[in-house]
């Protein structure tokens, strides 16, 4: 079965500080991994995805994530956050049918001025 665990439900961080949002997965099929962001009152937007190749994936808005197979993790990082990064972040992995995404419960990132 495919599942995703986001270890932190809320992460407060000061502006210009680094941040890491944690995600661990379990999957019995080929591993594709996604991070989506949801700004207030909006739908989800793709931040980045890992399909194959380099384990360090760069996405939009300065975010990056590293696929670690041995630790079954796909943590999201940003070296310096901005107020505009305040949002909810979801890690996701394709489901058993390899098409519908299984999402974690989300991590709310609050950037403090």
């Amino acid at each position, binding site marked *: 079965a495919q599942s995703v665990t*986001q270890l932190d*439900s809320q992460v407060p961080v000061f502006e210009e500080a680094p941040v890491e949002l944690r995600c661990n997965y379990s999957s019995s*099929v*080929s591993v*594709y991994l*996604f991070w*989506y962001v949801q700004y207030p*009152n*909006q*739908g*989800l*937007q*793709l931040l980045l*995805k890992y*399909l194959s190749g380099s384990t360090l994936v760069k996405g939009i808005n300065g975010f990056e994530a590293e696929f670690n197979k041995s630790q079954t993790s796909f943590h999201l990082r940003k070296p310096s956050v901005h107020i505009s990064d305040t949002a909810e972040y*979801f890690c996701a992995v*394709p*489901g058993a*049918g*390899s*098409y*519908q*995404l*299984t*999402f*974690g*419960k*989300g991590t709310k990132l609050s950037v403090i001025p």
Partner: protein
Amino acid sequence: GAGVSQSPSNKVTEKGKDVELRCDPISGHTALYWYRQRLGQGLEFLIYFQGNSAPDKSGLPSDRFSAERTGESVSTLTIQRTQQEDSAVYLCASSLGPGGGTEAFFGQGTRLTVV
């Protein structure tokens, strides 16, 4: 259209009434998904359509929920005899096709409140 469009954006209904939620996918996208997002929860898969294949309804929580899609166009999600636990944001997404690596594009959702 330029993106996935959902209507209405907000819906307040009385317990026991039926509601219909609409999703217009991105033109050319053969795959369409419905998810439910309850307050403080992740996204819960409801149903998946791919072209003219039989939909995957494995995520529908009860027989009060149903969805239709005509070809590769508009989809409607219908909830009959709404209950308070149906209150949630219902998100629709579409993608170019099946395959785990295909990006899904989401609409802004319909916020359903059952009173």
